[in-house]
């Protein structure tokens, strides 16, 4: 085995030898599923009270919109996993044995970047399972359209996998740049769940579109998925098309990781 394969194999063993990965996986299914279920019931029973000006899709479109909540709420999990894969090594001082096994730092960080890809896909599957169990199942029970017979729905699921993988890469970059695990996770949540949604409300307040806001990481993530409840409800930031969205979110991951490498990961350990 060459050094690249060895280091990659070490990174995979790291993920699967503590309980974090499956505990987070269960939380992912439960948290996204719960949110999707809540929206299903809100729309089903409260639909009539919705604002008349607001465009509310119906049938399969509505089902897809509900499932897209999966990434809206689930994207943080692969990002947390990615951030922990770097920052967790600083927290538990396991960076020392890691760098003794492979002293080539950029290769270690690259292995973390690559290894988070299947992990991101795994968490995406958990999100989709949550959508099916707590979204599609109740929709079917209530007699509403589930959208599962529509190819577009499955295409969106595929795009959700892509979005989650990209969020994993952003997480690795954030962990490499911040290195303090707690600070990394808190800033991830703060930026994506408070700062960015606040910024994305601005166009509504000033009555003007701000194109730059479409390139914030959360907006790009929504664009990768292709649907977003956020976007519809607040009628603000417009989505960009799939290609630029993927490249944009990937750029966040790459830039953060490269910056983390030069500013932190290359530095003295211990």
């Amino acid at each position, binding site marked *: *085995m060459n*050094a690249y394969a*060895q*280091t990659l*194999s*070490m990174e995979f*063993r*790291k993920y699967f*030898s*503590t*309980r*974090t990965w499956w505990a987070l996986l269960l939380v992912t299914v439960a948290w996204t599923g719960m949110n999707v279920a809540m929206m299903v019931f809100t729309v089903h029973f409260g639909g009539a009270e919705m604002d008349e000006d607001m465009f509310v899709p119906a049938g399969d479109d509505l089902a897809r919109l509900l499932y897209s909540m999966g990434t809206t709420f689930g994207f943080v999990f692969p990002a947390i996993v990615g951030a922990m894969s770097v920052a*967790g090594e600083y927290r*538990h*001082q*396991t*960076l*020392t*044995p*890691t*760098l*003794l*096994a*492979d*002293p*080539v730092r950029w290769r270690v960080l690259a292995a973390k970047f690559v290894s988070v890809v299947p992990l991101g896909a795994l968490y995406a599957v958990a999100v989709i399972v949550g959508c099916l169990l707590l979204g599609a199942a109740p929709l079917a029970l209530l007699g509403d359209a589930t959208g599962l017979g529509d190819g577009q729905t499955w295409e969106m699921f595929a795009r959700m996998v892509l979005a989650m993988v990209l969020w994993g890469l952003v997480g690795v970059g954030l962990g490499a740049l911040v290195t303090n695990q707690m600070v990394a996770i808190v800033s991830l949540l703060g930026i994506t769940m408070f700062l960015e949604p606040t910024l994305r409300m601005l166009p509504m307040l000033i009555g003007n579109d701000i194109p730059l806001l479409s390139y914030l990481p959360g907006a790009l993530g929504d664009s990768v998925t292709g649907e977003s409840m956020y976007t519809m409800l607040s009628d603000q930031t417009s989505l960009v098309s799939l290609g630029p969205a993927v490249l944009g979110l990937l750029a966040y991951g790459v830039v953060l990781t490269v910056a983390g490498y030069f500013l932190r990961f290359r530095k*003295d*350990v*211990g």
Partner: protein
Amino acid sequence: MLEIDGLTKRFGPLTAVDDLSFTVPPGKVTGFLGPNGAGKTTTLRMALGLTRPTSGTATFDGRTYQQLPAPMRHVGAALEASSFHPGRTATDHAAMIAAGAGIDQARCAQVLDLVGLGSAAGRRVGGFSMGMRARLGLAVALLGDPQVLLLDEPTNGLDPEGIVWIRDLLRHLADQGKAVLVSSHLLSEVQQSVDDVVIIAHGRLVHASPLAELAASAHENRTDVAAADPEALARLAQDQGWTLTTGPSGTVLVGPTAAEIGHAAFAAGIELHQLATQRGGLEAAFLALTEGQGDIR
């Protein structure tokens, strides 16, 4: 063989390691000694590529740790005993490192058995005592059956039985032709197992020799002397061919006994105010070398 050549590390205005040079030859256990804060760990971390030297080099048969094609097969290192994820079992930790270093997974169980962790291999490290963590660190160091071993305070946290065990192990490894470096802040911890000693204080080399040489110097007479006229005392030392040095508590005469000094001073009419034989032994020689080079930095 590890060669440290002119190794220097500055952290801002603080010089942690100052132009340090020594070698760790194969087939021997070298004790790397100095008070806490002397720069031992920083030196080891530089040798292993974890910390970048300000200047100087540390090479294993001519190559830095990063340049070694399979570093853990050449060099095994056990640094401080806290580098484990508490939720990971001993076996999983070893397996993860073995995977990264390209070492056969079957080796993990072997080294865990070797260090006496066979029955605890499946337990999470979070529940391990300090001694068990030290053993796990040692097991990982031995994974690649390396030619060079660098162990930072390996006896920390071990019970007396464990200390005897590690002494025997180090001797055994050196007898196999491996180069073994063991750091400690206590000479007494390692004096029964080391062949050579490298002593540093304030990041500088203060002594390097076979242990036997340090022991021989420890048996020289060392006497603290204070005279009313220090210059007269210096002249007397020169006339008599005695070595006069300055210790932490003043003038020290090396060679003659206290009685010989007292007699010669009396004959020469020199008024003495102090005449005290220093405590002998290896530990005293070690302390004399590092004393006054305090821990507080």
